[in-house]
């Protein structure tokens, strides 16, 4: 057993990726619903276990590397886990496991029974891709994993078989492919100039060629491509429909993880590879990102207020929340980055939980329309209470996770002496208050609609994971050692750059 334990210990970084990767094709072979779903759930929790072990190790000994195929770093593909990567791995795999645990009951309702094994396969592949992005130290590998995650999520969105889901998935496919192509062109140009794809090696060689126009073009392609992938305003148009019409479990998973991982890619490229000095001091990336982030926060929040479809409303709110993350990054200071990174985590919990609560509503009401949801708080008090809790987090009420993020962001703004940004941040919370309150008021204080009168509380198998996730937002709003604490370490690591 000792032999096995030491082997597993050495192989942790690769296990993080290949456990879900190997399980995905096995799902096709198992095929039977009663076998596939429990199997996939166990695999997801195993991946979560690996990420917990990785984070512990990284916090203890610093960044760990792994040579794929035994080939040494600049030539072979290297996996590299530092505090930021391990943090992203942790919440992506954790939410992935929790959402899949929640999914079975909602799948019966929303996905034809013959496709459940395909759902599990695609879900695991998507998880593989997202985890792979966060773990790899190789630029081309980032692109490959990005495509694995994206292609499987296009299919996941279309899987529900609802009519609107197909054009939504197709639009996402077109925009996502443009984004990925831009990223690939950027990586290609960088490879052409430096002759390396390893991130550490690249960071080493780039300064010599940074003055050249090719470097600027590469930087431009990468920025636009990544902005598309993370749905930064005004490149967010693919997001609302994709989130709104996907099956509930898919919305919850993708909303919680996919844009966050794209923000991670931004951090990796702009800080670790190009370096703080080039990206922010020389090219002024912060000055470009900040107005877009602020515009995104205000425009998307305002649009969210007028949505009838509540999943769509949450999707617009996601665009606004990406704005907060990018705003934190645009400060390029330790506090700002901590705010941005901790908001990755906090928003993943909040939005994942909110979409899970919407899945409960969808199961009982077969609609997420605001009018149909009138009075649903009486029939489904636990679900709506969870929703309200998540809503408080979105607003950023003290003692919720959202407050922690905004606290750091406002502090970062004040540190820079931009009182205006701090005031705007506070004002934007009022917009969130409006769209959250609208739902809470309709659900609790209006006369029940016909459907709401007949509805029952959601089953425990869905309620418990929803409450775990939204309960976690309160936990991490009070006890921040493992959210803001780790984010702080990650921010420092990012600012320090690669060794």
């Amino acid at each position, binding site marked *: 057993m000792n032999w096995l334990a030491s082997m597993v210990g050495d*192989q942790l970084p690769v296990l993080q990726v*290949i456990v879900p*990767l*190997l399980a*995905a*094709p*096995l799902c*096709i072979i198992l095929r039977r619903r009663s076998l596939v779903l429990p199997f996939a759930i166990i695999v997801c929790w195993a991946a979560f276990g690996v990420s917990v072990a990785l984070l512990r190790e990284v916090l203890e000994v610093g960044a760990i590397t792994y040579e*794929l*195929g035994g080939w040494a770093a600049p030539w072979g593909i290297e996996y590299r886990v530092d505090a930021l990567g391990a943090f992203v791995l942790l919440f992506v795999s954790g939410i992935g496991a929790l959402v899949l645990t929640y999914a079975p009951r909602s799948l019966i309702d929303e996905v034809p029974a013959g496709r459940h094994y395909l759902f599990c396969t695609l879900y695991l592949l998507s998880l593989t891709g997202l985890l792979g992005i966060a773990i790899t130290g190789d630029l081309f590998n980032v692109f490959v994993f990005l495509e694995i995650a994206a292609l499987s999520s296009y299919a996941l969105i279309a899987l529900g078989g609802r009519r609107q889901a197909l054009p939504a998935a197709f639009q996402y496919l077109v925009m996502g492919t443009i984004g990925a192509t831009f990223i690939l062109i950027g990586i290609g140009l960088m490879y052409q100039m430096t002759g390396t794809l390893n991130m550490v090696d690249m960071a080493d060689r780039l300064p010599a060629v940074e003055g050249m126009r090719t470097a600027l073009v590469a930087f431009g392609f990468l920025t636009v491509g990544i902005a598309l992938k993370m749905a930064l305003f005004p490149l967010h148009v693919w997001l609302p429909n994709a989130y709104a019409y996907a099956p509930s479990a898919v919305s919850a998973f993708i909303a919680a993880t996919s844009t966050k991982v794209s923000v991670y890619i931004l951090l990796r490229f702009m800080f670790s590879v190009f370096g703080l000095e080039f990206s922010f001091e020389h090219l002024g990336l912060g000055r470009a990102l900040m107005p877009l982030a602020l515009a995104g926060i205000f425009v998307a929040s305002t649009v969210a207020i007028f949505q009838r479809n509540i999943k769509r409303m949450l999707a617009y709110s996601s665009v606004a929340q990406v704005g907060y993350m990018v705003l934190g990054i645009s400060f390029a200071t330790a506090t700002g980055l901590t705010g941005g990174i901790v908001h990755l985590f906090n928003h993943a919990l909040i939005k994942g939980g909110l979409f899970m609560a919407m899945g409960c509503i969808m199961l009982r009401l077969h609609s997420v329309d605001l009018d149909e949801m009138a009075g649903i708080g009486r029939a489904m008090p636990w679900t709506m209470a969870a929703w309200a809790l998540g809503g408080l987090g979105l607003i950023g009420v003290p003692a919720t996770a959202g407050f922690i993020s905004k606290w750091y962001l406002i502090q970062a703004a004040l540190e820079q002496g931009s009182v205006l940004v701090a005031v705007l941040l506070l004002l934007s919370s009022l917009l969130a208050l409006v769209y959250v309150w609208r739902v809470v008021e309709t659900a609790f204080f209006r006369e029940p609609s016909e459907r709401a009168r007949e509805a029952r509380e959601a089953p425990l198998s869905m309620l418990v994971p929803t409450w775990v996730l939204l309960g976690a937002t309160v936990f991490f709003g009070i006890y921040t050692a493992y959210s803001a604490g780790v984010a702080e370490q990650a921010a420092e690591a990012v600012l320090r750059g690669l060794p």
Partner: protein
Amino acid sequence: MTDHTILRVVSKFVLPYVLLFALYVQFHGDYGPGGGFQAGVIFAAGFVLYGMIYGLTAVRRVAPERVIEILIAVGVLIFAGTGVLTMLLGGNFLEYGVLTPAYPASGQHYGILVVELGVGVTVAAVIIAIYSTFAGRGRQ
């Protein structure tokens, strides 16, 4: 295409060579141009040709959809399974050298052959599946 005798006869004549050439490209990929992806495409092209001349029903008799679906998965499992095997033998993921510790170079040779076989199986199966899905649209 029952009345196109020339097409039927010639395609039947060509088919074995298409498949054989695919296998050549597959297993010669480590020395010459080629490898799993190209071989898989050529192999699947044989099935597509067969389907175009003799109809989709005939293809599905040879390659039932369920079997093709399993083959897609099996190819990935062959690839990743090789990696897991090298891990169990004490190396890193896909470190073929540990397959034959006495002479790592030949282990790397075996490793790449097996892995490419996995690629070939999956690529061939995926292309047959894409063809049969598009050709079968509107039938159900």
